[in-house]
């Protein structure tokens, strides 16, 4: 598996550390009433077969956080962008 790091170019998978699904959003409140949201965020996963956007750390390279778009069924990597840019896109409401 090769990952096109936006900073370093295409690099082999062993340089990267996978965190997991980029879709769950961290709840902003610490109010106990939002417990269900926290439970969802920490423990539940869509775990999709197919298209998957995930947080990946380029730990053996530029050490930047990326969001890699990958197919979990074929391991095909469709692209990678900086996590910061991905967050900006999400905030605008546009899905990646």
């Amino acid at each position: 598996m090769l990952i096109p790091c936006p900073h370093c170019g295409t690099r082999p998978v062993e340089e990267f550390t996978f965190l997991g699904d980029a879709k769950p959003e961290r709840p902003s409140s610490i109010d106990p009433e939002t417990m269900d949201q926290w439970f969802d965020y920490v423990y539940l996963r869509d775990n999709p077969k197919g298209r998957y956007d995930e947080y990946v750390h380029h730990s053996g390279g530029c050490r930047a956080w990326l969001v890699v778009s990958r197919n979990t069924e074929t391991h095909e990597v469709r692209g990678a962008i900086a996590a910061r840019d991905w967050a900006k896109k999400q905030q605008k409401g546009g899905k990646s």
Partner: protein
Amino acid sequence: MKYSVFSLLRYSLSGHKNWTPAWREPQPKKDYDIIIVGGGGHGLSTAYYLAKEHGLTNVAVLEKGWLGSGNIGRNTTIIRSNYLLPGNNPFYEWSMKLWEGLEQDFNFNAMVSQRGVLNLCHTDPQRDAFARRGNAMRIDGVDAELLDAHAVREMYPFLDFENARFPIKGGLLQRRGGTVRHDAVAWGYARGADHRGVDIIQNCEVTGIRVEKGKVLGVETNRGFIGCRKLGLAAAGNSSEVAAMAGMRLPVESHVLQAFVSEGLKPYIDGVITFGAGHFYVSQSDKGGLVFGGDLDGYNSYARRGNLPMVEHVIEAGVAMIPGLARVRVLRSWGGIMDMSMDGSPIIDKTPIDGLYLNTGWCYGGFKATPASGWCFAWTIAKNERHKLNDAYRLDRFRRGYMIDEKGQGATPNLH
């Protein structure tokens, strides 16, 4: 037909031409009392114990591929019950006890071999941790022996005791652990369940779950709708996909784990040895191949194949433990999809949907659990309540804060 030395002799006289199939290939009926989704080890053992322990035989096992095509035929065949935490030890020890009587019980040669599982330790703190785990095991009635380096050397002189970075300080040995011929486990359970009247339906993929007013009515399949009163999900790596058909999201991620077998060698390793300074475990099959594995690749996957860096990593760990492995050729490698739960422990429980039961989250420890998993799941389905052995494996333990986290990693499935 009962298999015995006499049936073997009788059929050998006729040139082994008249053996009958070990199980039928029935057409699905319109409905069943109980349907189990997943014809792997856990699904088949569940059906077997439903029939044997609870007398429930109007049962179907639906398998999307061929029988035992998933992880029951892809694991490294190790059985053990060397856990630390209270929820785990009694369950896995019950599994070990079922393994010990399994072949007589289901009349099939599963080649259960209690050849011993040895975990190596490489530092003083690790030895302390092993002593603690060994004590926890013995409190629960499990056998455990703490060995010093000399005793380990007596057993396996070819290990790299003087490794500069990971010298071997000793090990924790469970003599009752060992290996089992994994395919035979699927076949034995399938045959035993089939003989008691369970329908095992292969090439039947579940495409939907029909739920009305919070109650399960049946499943849509590629061979039409099949009704049921109770539905048990034992779909391992595909658990999330199947549960989503009933509108459930699970605390599970699917990850790929690779395993390997070497060319056949003369008898070399007569037990199971695990490396304590990395993740590597090895045994030798009866055909002579070394069977070994290591860590997950680390990313979510449904692909049943991994990448080469993990192959290299596993073999590096192996050579660090047994330098002689550098001379051995790898024959094959393959991958399986693990249902990695959020605390590294499984789930065997009812669900919020009436008549829907869940068996998942086996991470990469599902094989050794096959008998007890089926036994407890059958109990839970038959009686609509958890047995005390799976009482800790509740689905709601994550919400309630009662994780069973052997490795202490938190909700990071790729690290368990």
